[in-house]
């Protein structure tokens, strides 16, 4: 299959890559660009481990083609911290022990950030339903919700 050249923006930086027309964005990120923060938990859109945003929209990168990145703005977990300064969500995930093996963590953080951009004060119920597409086998989710809520509170300037 012939490769196609794609020009895109990832975490604010212009990026060009070659990929085949049937290649998922997840594989492009991981195998061609060395951005291995997004994980493959299923490859079928059911686990959320591969979550990234494309033009601000939360997607499973295993279900998006690399060629669809043409001209788009992609955000991945690698772009969440500003240099050494962690995003409040990242800090609260550490402080609240909201992770164990860590494979689900990048996807959940990307998804939670996209929730808080749309809804700065979600209810627990809203957090639960927004994150329902992100599976975690280790934590039992309790600390994840706590971490999202305490980060949201901090981002609203409440602490």
């Amino acid at each position, binding site marked *: 299959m012939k490769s196609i050249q794609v020009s895109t923006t990832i975490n604010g930086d212009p990026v060009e890559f070659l990929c085949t027309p049937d290649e998922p964005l997840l594989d492009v990120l991981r195998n061609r660009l060395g951005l291995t923060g997004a994980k493959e938990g299923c490859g079928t859109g059911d*686990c959320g481990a591969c979550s990234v945003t494309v033009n601000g929209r939360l997607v499973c990168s295993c279900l998006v083609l690399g060629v669809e990145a043409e001209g788009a703005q992609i955000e991945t977990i690698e772009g969440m911290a500003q240099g050494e300064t962690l995003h409040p969500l990242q800090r609260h995930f550490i402080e609240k022990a909201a992770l164990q093996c860590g*494979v689900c963590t990048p996807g959940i953080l990307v998804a939670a950030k996209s929730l808080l951009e749309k809804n700065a004060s979600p209810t627990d119920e809203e957090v639960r339903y927004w994150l329902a597409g992100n599976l975690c086998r280790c934590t039992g989710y309790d600390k994840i919700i706590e971490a999202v809520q305490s980060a949201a509170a901090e981002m609203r300037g409440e602490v």
Partner: protein
Amino acid sequence: MRKQAGALGAALPHDSAPLHVTGRAPYVDDLKLPGDALHLAFGLSTVAHAEIEALDLSAVRAAPGVVLVLTAQDFDHVPDVSPVAGDEPLLADGTVHYLGQAVFLVAATSHLAARKAARLAKVTYRERPAILTVEEALAAGSRFETGPITWARGDLSTGFAAAKTVVEGEMEVGGQEHFYLEGQVAAAIPTEDGVQVMASTQHPTEIQHKVAHALHLPMAAVRVEMRRMGGGFGGKESQGNALAVACAVVASRTGRPAKMRYDRDDDMMITGKRHDLKIRYRAGCDAQGRITAMEVVHLMRCGWSQDLSLAVADRAMLHADNAYFIPNIRIESHRLKTNTQSATAYRGFGGPQGIVGMERIIDHLAHATGRDPVAIMQANFYAERPGGSPAKASPGVSPPGPQDISAKLKGEVQTTQYGMEVEDSVSGRLVGKLLADCDYHARKAAIAEWNAGSPVLKRGIAVTPVKFGISFTLTFLNQAGALVHVYQDGSVHLSHGGTEMGQGLNQKVAQVVAEVFGLSARDIQITAADTGKVPNTSATAASSGSDLNGKAAEAAALTIRARMAEFLAGKYGVAADTVRFKGGEVLVAGESHAFARVAEWVWQARISLSSTGFYATPKITWDRVRGQGRPFLYFAYGAAVTEVVIDTLTGENRILRTDILHDCGRSLNPALDIGQVEGAYVQGAGWLTTEELVWDAKGRLATHAPSTYKIPAVSDRPAIFNVALWTEPNQEDTVGKSKAVGEPPFNLGISALMALSHALSFCGTAYPALDAPATAERVLMAVERVRHG
């Protein structure tokens, strides 16, 4: 005194947390391999049992990117990838034994190319009858070992004669897919004199052993490294052997690095899961609710190869009593061989299967006697050791006999059905506290009232206690090694034989070492498990990780600290035991020196700052054949109360509230321990409610992806979830007096199943006899059963 940041008991985050939240923690699949690396995939059997008549792989070989294709014919001896029995050829050797078995191996230039090519084989099978269910296996006499294993004590007929109420039944309990979020993966790189393997495995030494055997190399020529797994849960104890061996074989034949990962579907089709089973039971209690006799039969579906099934089935038998003293008991266990995936280790290792049967009996007896299950539990808990006298040193192997029956009355230590004294029981007090804390009795009364006014929705509540034995039942596995170096600048390097799968083992062991040196955990450099540094390790399994490796690392650190103290004692003319290590300083003769400074002096004095440490669990003895001994160093306890609601029109159900009180001894790190408890509970509840494995009539696993196999999602988490730790120190001399935490709380999920049973009991008079997993479908069928008897 303020606790040092690195000290034992501090609620510090997971050591890799900063890497995890930035996506920078590398897992095996994230490692960069040289550009000429090959990617592997297995071609899988499409039938459950057959002779391979013809294998046409021409299209596979001709597919784009394919470099090498191997079948059993390409080996003088097909490498074995089984953990124990030598019954798992890497590639099917003439016969396939389950649908999903590896038949051939493809190495190609990309993962996708290998997978695509693997679909192009033309295989002609001569099908043979497949044995899929435990009934079929029983009828055909298809089993491991020559017959069932039976352990008993007391006298059943006397026991049943003393019973006022007798219940009898059968329960189906489903298996469980591990669904570690990171699938199985391994990579191998050829080295000067052998091979280096990176694998997502709980058992690096076994990988080393299997790879060495496959390549006809000494173990010393194979080095296995394991930095972190993306979840294991027992599924990476033996199931990763095939990938690592395949990579090593390809690397050695081609001289190129090789990597293999299973796609989620392949992972679910190929690898073993938790053993499903049927439990047949008969049990009786007297007028006070005391169980006088109990008879249990476990029909364990083990799959096509033995794997770890014998030990798993043993542990199910060892937990058939859960937290209760049962004077007259008989447990019969059948280890049945079927043409399905080879069932394997899964968190609890058979224990949960034993415990769920016991809890079913309690629930059934409560229903039959019209009592609260709590009353039955309280009448039967192992007694607390009278007077808190120190534990006896003897293993306490006493022959089963009638003297046990009255032990509780006479204030003696009670023994289990396998003759182990239960010296540390806290079930009565622990359950009592939990019930009071979560207001169980009042809530239960309120639920009955609410249900009376609610024709469609019914609520239910239940408590499940757990007593879980800690130690490998294969006694020789209870050992661990560690290696600690202190460098001349005072920094500390730690290696131990345990593997990190998310449980925070490295963090805990680092805290143990930091405590010894009076440093902070941040000062301890944690490194990958590496067979080149710590040899002959046991799997990180049986919840033993921190018990064993913590002790070994502590021993290593203590050796080095003693040398440092000796040196200072000589230098200052004081006794070595007056030297103190704390707060990053070393205090001697009224002076205080930075730890780094002292390390430098000791180095310059030509004294070794490196040491290994070793630990072997004391006291344990176990005669597997007789089913007698002390297989466990101690027990971990806990209890959960779960409240649920069901919709009697659809069978849909959800968990409303969960309260847990769990025994971690003196916790090494409460943040990590609470995380383990919560995750284990949710996984346990998932096992018994939503996680359904379905095989079709041809033996094909129909639920082989998350679209059809439902692990709990965040929306399933109980709306109210209270978790507290029971903090009494371990009576045994464990590291920091802590208790193991990986598996015991998994069993707390059983309370969700029992709460569903309670909710169902409001639909009519018949016993719900709920099978697991209690999917909406099963709950709905149970509604009908309860209504119409």
